[in-house]
């Protein structure tokens, strides 16, 4: 199954506005990755309450954040949780091809 390793999970809600991020992070399996998009990108903010949660996930899983959605929200120049990688939409497409499926936590 090396070509279909594990799911890519997308989170599009603010971490303080519902359980999407927490639920998503609690369901990561070996090889799974997380992409924060839309209001989900607020979770990448260093210093936010949920930063520890994300840092924990980053020990075992890559976490990506959609750059255009950071810029839209005024977060482009701000400090993010260390280890989070910024991708654009082409990067999102590439991630989707490399993972077995895309599961949206909305």
């Amino acid at each position: 199954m090396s070509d279909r390793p594990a799911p890519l999970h997308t989170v599009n809600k603010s971490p303080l506005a519902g359980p999407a991020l927490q639920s998503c992070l609690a369901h990561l399996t070996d090889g799974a990755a997380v992409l924060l998009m839309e209001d989900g990108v607020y979770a990448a903010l260093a210093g936010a309450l949920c930063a520890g949660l994300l840092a924990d996930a980053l020990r075992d899983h890559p976490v990506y954040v959609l750059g255009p959605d950071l810029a839209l929200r005024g977060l482009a120049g701000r400090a993010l949780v260390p280890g989070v990688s910024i991708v654009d939409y082409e990067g999102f497409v590439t991630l989707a091809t490399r993972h077995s499926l895309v599961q949206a936590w909305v």
Partner: protein
Amino acid sequence: MRPKRLLFVARCPPHGGARAAEMLDAALIAASFGQDVHLAFLDDGVFQLLADQQPGPDGPRNFAAGFADLDDYDIDPVWVERDSLGVRGLSAGDLMIPVTLLDRRDLAERMAEMDVVIGS
């Protein structure tokens, strides 16, 4: 072409709009098209299965009736996350249909084995 394993994930409560009912519709159609359909309920989605829901004359349609069709469509078992029931003070006996309770880790593993995951 072999049937795909399609999982519909329900994480929202039942009566906040048509979303829950429309996701159930989609699952039933997928099953009728011969796909290998699974349903998982977690977070507030477990409220969709609560027994004794009484839609009023003015309310949205009684989508709960749709769960009675799951057998006909060969969708079973229905997966429910045990932890999601617990924090809501609920147990499997409170639900309108028989379900398979799964721990979070087990549900995560099964979701990861699907071909397609749809829903919220």
